[in-house]
């Protein structure tokens, strides 16, 4: 038996260590101090910056702070070993207000709003050709800056220890700065009216000048823009004092993906343990990163960042089987400036196997081909481990294209990822909202390869797919069963198949592939039940289901008999997720009436047949009058023509677009529902059963009369 998590084979470890030293040697030979400019992903440690701010109430001298920072650095090194190259220092002062407000309030705009940048007028001859900081230093004689910002800049330069090259650049910048008596806003006005061609002003102000100016990156190591370029992870750590002791909040900024993680808090009542507490908070806030190398519809092959440097599975940078990852896409323009930075909505991967560097993962997505797409050097598909912090997530189902319009009454089911059992969670309320608690998440998954093999075997042995469960569940819990010939089985959600169900996406390329059609989904082939050991193929090595380490749920949103979406979601990752799904209102309305009508048809058929049988029996018993009475009762029932007319009227009403246009897809589905019903009418009610019985009785009477009497 191969244990997927057994990665510490001596030979593997030996190869990894050798490779690392070879890399290091090559770097030394090349004489390039910036070793990881051309990084080898799995052997490049995370470049990590930790910025700590202490609450004003925590008085400490510089020496203590230095000692504490050193201790934290040592703790982090002990935890992450070679996987991290970490620098721990006090947070820059321009972030003081942000720390004071609390880390949870920080978004990227808040982080950068107090930071300064070099702003050049677009139409100025002097600045026309300047695109880089170096060019600016070379070509500009003076750069205007307010006295306040110059003071802050000078102070920051003095306090911030950095490498010589950066130090030199900063020195040069300061030498070009000319203090202006005006305020930052006055400088902005000067830039706008071209009286100033270059100035350094805060971003919060420069954003307003985007039409007439151009910004140039300043390589100031205490600014976020610098971190974006030079660091992989930044941790903002705040230490505050409460009556319960010291609270440490840590929040990660993934710099390449410019993604802020959740705030993770730890506490200690003993200041002596503060460094341990900080380490724990950072470890909790840290999201290991893997790169997508190969993508299939349902699986992906990944490569773990710094995986080659991790010698121990206890290293927080290690990804274990069962870890849930969220894909993030970064697409750069020609200048290397990101044009798209976005976590893929409703898409998650679960590590199923790892050798420490290469990972296999199951992919669960509500979007067809979520991880697929054009591959090029400018597009990165990164997966980061999720860090859910809440106990539940609210899902809000709204109409695509109109966030204000909720879709209420949708039933939400959770499918167990291992057993594939379905469980009804509830329905969306008038706001289109439903609260999904973490306990609705699956506990385990089956690696896709095994699941597929079992599905094939199940198909061969004729076991029923668990898809039909959703129909059953909906009958009992959603109370939607129709009396008529339900086409519910046509519209039940299927398990993930070639691309799975479509769902909404925020980005433009995905919105065209929104949620599925009911009948469409029926044709999709999915894995059948994996919960039955009996169907496990003999040649498949037995592999236990993998325990999920984060609460991943596979949710289905159903409106009436129609599955609107399939939504994988890590519960508690966010407090609110908005699912934009195509409006199903008119189709559902039609379904409500058509199903009711089908019930009427069913009962009518039942009554007709019952009365016909009764009349035949009475005739056989020679009770002719009663038999005729039964035929009269059949005649008194609603006729085919009446029912067909009623159906026609209903169809006209349901397809009326006077006040409200019907989406084409809905219209097609409505037509299909009516067509099915019409066919039922023709098949079962068109025949004049009363007349037929009368003829039969007459013939029988004639025959018995013509039989010669003995």
């Amino acid at each position: 038996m191969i244990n997927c998590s057994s990665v510490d084979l001596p030979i593997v470890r030996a190869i990894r260590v050798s490779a690392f030293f070879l890399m290091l040697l090559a770097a030394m030979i090349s004489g390039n101090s910036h070793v990881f400019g051309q990084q080898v992903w799995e052997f490049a440690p995370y470049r990590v910056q930790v910025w700590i701010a202490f609450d004003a109430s925590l008085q400490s001298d510089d020496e203590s702070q230095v000692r504490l920072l050193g201790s934290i650095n040592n703790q982090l090194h002990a935890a992450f070993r070679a996987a991290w190259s970490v620098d721990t220092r006090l947070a820059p002062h321009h972030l003081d207000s942000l720390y004071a407000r609390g880390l949870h309030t920080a978004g990227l705009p808040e982080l950068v709003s107090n930071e300064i940048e070099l702003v050049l007028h677009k139409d100025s001859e002097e600045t026309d050709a300047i695109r880089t900081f170096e060019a600016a230093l070379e070509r500009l004689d003076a750069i205007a800056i307010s006295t306040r910002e110059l003071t802050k800049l000078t102070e920051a330069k003095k306090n911030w220890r950095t490498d010589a090259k950066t130090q030199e650049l900063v020195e040069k910048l300061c030498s070009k700065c000319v203090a202006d008596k005006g305020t930052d806003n006055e400088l902005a006005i000067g830039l706008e009216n071209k009286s100033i061609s270059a100035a350094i002003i805060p971003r919060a102000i420069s954003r307003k000048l985007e039409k007439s100016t151009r910004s140039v990156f300043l390589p100031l190591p205490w600014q976020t823009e610098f971190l974006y370029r030079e660091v992989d992870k930044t941790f903002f750590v705040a230490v505050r004092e409460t009556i319960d002791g010291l609270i440490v909040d840590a929040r990660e900024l993934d710099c390449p993906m410019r993604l802020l993680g959740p705030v993770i808090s730890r506490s200690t009542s003993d200041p002596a343990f503060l460094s341990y507490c900080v380490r724990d908070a950072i470890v909790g806030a840290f999201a290991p990163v893997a790169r997508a190398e190969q993508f299939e519809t349902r699986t992906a092959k990944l490569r773990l960042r710094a995986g080659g440097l991790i010698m121990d599975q206890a290293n927080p940078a290690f990804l274990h089987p069962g870890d849930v990852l969220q894909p993030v896409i970064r697409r750069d323009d020609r200048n290397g400036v990101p044009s798209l930075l976005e976590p893929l909505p409703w898409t998650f991967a679960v590590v199923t196997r790892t050798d420490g560097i290469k990972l296999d993962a199951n992919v669960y997505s509500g979007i067809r081909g979520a991880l697929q797409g054009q591959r090029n050097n400018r597009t990165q598909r990164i997966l980061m481990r999720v860090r859910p912090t809440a106990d539940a997530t609210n899902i809000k189902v709204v109409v695509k294209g109109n966030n204000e319009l909720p879709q209420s009454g949708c039933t939400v089911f959770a499918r167990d990822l291992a057993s594939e059992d379905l469980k009804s969670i509830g329905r969306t309320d008038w706001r289109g909202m439903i609260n999904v608690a973490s306990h609705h998440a699956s506990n385990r998954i089956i690696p896709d390869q095994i699941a597929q093999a079992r599905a094939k075997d199940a198909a061969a042995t004729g076991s029923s797919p668990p898809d039909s469960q959703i129909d059953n569940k909906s009958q009992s819990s959603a109370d939607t069963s129709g009396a008529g010939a339900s086409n519910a089985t046509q519209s039940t959600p299927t398990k993930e198949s070639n691309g799975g169900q479509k769902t909404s996406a925020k980005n433009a390329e995905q919105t065209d592939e929104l949620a599925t059609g009911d009948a469409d989904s029926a044709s999709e082939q999915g894995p059948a039940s994996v919960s039955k050991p009996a169907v496990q193929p003999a040649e498949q090595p037995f592999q236990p289901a993998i325990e999920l380490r984060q609460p991943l749920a596979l949710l289905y949103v159903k409106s009436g008999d129609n599955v609107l979406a399939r939504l994988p979601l890590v519960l508690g990752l966010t407090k609110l997720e908005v699912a934009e799904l195509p409006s199903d209102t008119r189709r559902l309305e039609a379904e409500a009436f058509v199903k009711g009508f089908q019930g009427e048809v069913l009962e009518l058929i039942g009554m007709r047949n019952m009365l016909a049988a009764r009349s035949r029996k009475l005739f056989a018993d020679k009770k002719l009058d009663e038999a005729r009475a039964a035929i009269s009762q059949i005649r008194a029932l609603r006729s085919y023509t009446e029912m067909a007319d009623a159906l026609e009227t209903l169809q006209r009403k349901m397809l009326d677009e006077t006040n409200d246009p019907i989406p084409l897809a809905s219209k097609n589905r409505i037509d299909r529902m009516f067509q099915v019903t019409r066919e039922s009418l023709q098949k079962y009610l068109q025949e004049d059963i009363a007349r037929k019985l009368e003829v039969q009785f007459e013939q029988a009477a004639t025959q018995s009369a013509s039989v010669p009497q003995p």
Partner: protein
Amino acid sequence: MMALRFPRFLQPVRCRAALIVGMCLLLCQILSDSPVLAQSKSNASATAGASELPLIDQPPFDLIRLNDAAGGRAVKIAPIPLPNRMIKPSPVAGKKIEVILLSHEDRRYEIAWSDIAQLELYELMIYDEAVRKLKEKDFVTAFQNLSFLMRKYPEIVGLERLREEFLFNSAMTMFASGRFTQTLATLEELYKTAPGYQPDSVLNGLNRVSDSIIKQYIDKNDFISARAMLERLRNDFSDKLSSVRAWRAKLQSLAAQKKQEAVKLMEAGDYRNARRASLAMLSIFPAEAEAKEVFNEINRRHPMVRVGVMQSSSELDPASLTNWPARRCGALIEKPLVEFLETGAEGGRYGFSLGLIRHSDDRQELTLELEPSLAGSLDAFTVAQSIFQRTDPQHADYDPSWAAIAHTVSVPSPTTIRVRLQRPNVLPQALMQWKCQLASTPTNPFDGSFRQVDSVENENAFQLRQPPTERDAPIEIIEIFYDDPKSAVNDLLKGELEVLDQLFPADATRLANNAKIQVGSYALPTVHMLVPVSEYEFLADQRFRRALMYASDRESILNEELLGSTSSNDGRIISGPFPSGIDSSDPLSYAYNSAVKPIEFEPRLSKLLLFMVDQDFAEKAEKLGKPVPQKRKIVVATPDFELAQVAVQAIIQQWALVGIDAEMVILPRGKVTDINTQYDLLYVTASMWEPLTDIERLFGEQGIARSNNPYIIQALARLRSARNWREVRTYLQDMHQLVDYHLPVLPLWQIADRFAVASSLAGLSDKPLTLYQNIAAWRINHLTADTVTRQ
């Protein structure tokens, strides 16, 4: 010809017929079970042969015993046609009589008189047996024989004497066994039909038995019956019965005692017991002026109304949709923020409890103006806060129906609250019938005019908060719970109650004929339905629910079991959750889709649907490899209310005919739901007076029938978006159609509920919405010299 008459029992007139029927039933019981009867049957068998029937059940025959010379046999013959059935003392010797032997009916024989030792006639044999049985104290057999003779052979000599002895002896035996009423009836019968038969003994018996009976009444404080009995005995026997004289004196003394007690209690301020004592006094001597004056004085000092209720309240909610008692009592105790006043041409008319309410012309804004008099005690901000809290899902008062339509709440001035709606809404104020608790105000402006003072097992008392400003206006209301409607009606008739809150429809018809009782009907009907509440998988299937409907003969249950009438004004079958109104012009019927016909009683179709459901479940289970779900007994819960219980029992019996097993559970008193009781269906009585919003209160997220059916939920959302009354009607009628199709509730019927008021209370409006709607106008009518009490 004298007939044996059944004794006339001395009971209050209204009960006599019932008691006679009861007596007959009792006799039947005795006849079937009595060991005496068994013995008498065996005796008869001994006489007539083991295999023979009692004499009175055999075809008539005479018995000839031949003398020894002729063989000594006893022969049964057909009755001999003797003149007057009299045997001559000395028949002529040598003469013969022609007889027909019962064993050879086709032959005739002649027997010489000289060969006959004894000739026994059929009727005399029965007479002899009656005498024998009387001696043996086998009164049942004796009564049968006697009764037979008096019908068939009344001319027998000594028969009347035998009847008198029978009556006397049986009376003595009944007295000894404590059956006083039967003894009295028997002795009265004897005294009237045979005044000469041992008159002293009979009168003595009458004295003793009447004494015992009256004592029993007095011991039970049933003065009305005691008085009625005394009056009757005095009329029938003048002053011949000493016990009557003695008891009259005792009652007079008791009345005086009760009067003293009443006065004492009144002076002590214990008006409830004072009234009870004075009622006892009045029931002893209703015509006595002094007694009336005491009663009036109590009512003057502390006007009190006693209300008989069929459902007691465990909670108070003046706007409750489904809890009749909560709505009734709630109206006494508190005012909702907005109150339903009456139906109108387009929806109901509503009043703001604290001032005025205005709906803007564009239907997108509500303005609430506080009364200037509230300026010191209440500010608009506090009220606005309460209104706004209803939109907050985290708040305890969250009301999703309101949150779905409200947009903003603002306070433009200290006395004005403005509510902006998300979109035009035709009747937003109907959703604001909330109980409000404004914590920041010293006195609650939503307090009703009464407060609850105490609550004992069967009684709830409410007292006026402020001293009354009007004379004879009730300052205390006492609600008395009755689980038996008959005893409630009796107490109303006896004067124990002034009002009966709900009447069993059949009782209403009966009481309407009583001049001292006024029967009124409430302004709006209630809608009755069964609400599926459990996760029972069969019940979740729409076909199964339709099968339940097809198996219920609602028409006959309503007309025969509940209403006792077929008038559609009293009640009618409905096809949806909305009231159908009296006709289509009734403004209340705006939601009712008359094109949707009520599901008819079709047990065969019901069986067919059940079969289909079974098949379907079996197939699904097989497909999933799971066990087939097993049917179990459906549990139907009903409030502790007679009408609902009768209805549910009848429905369950009908379901049993198609093979649906069900049982009834009764919810704890005062509750219309109960989380501690497991049930599948709940009998709900809803006051659907504003279908537009009440349907939301029924099926919405906090409704008693909150629905998971996506079609119903969508229909509710669509209803919320209605911008005018045309759309409201269309959407509601569509909703009605959908309810009929999918049956999220099983609609039963609507009933026009009735109440009854005694003439001692005035001021009840003709057609109130709830009992206490105009309680401020209620007045106690005092007894006058010529007032005849209801007893």
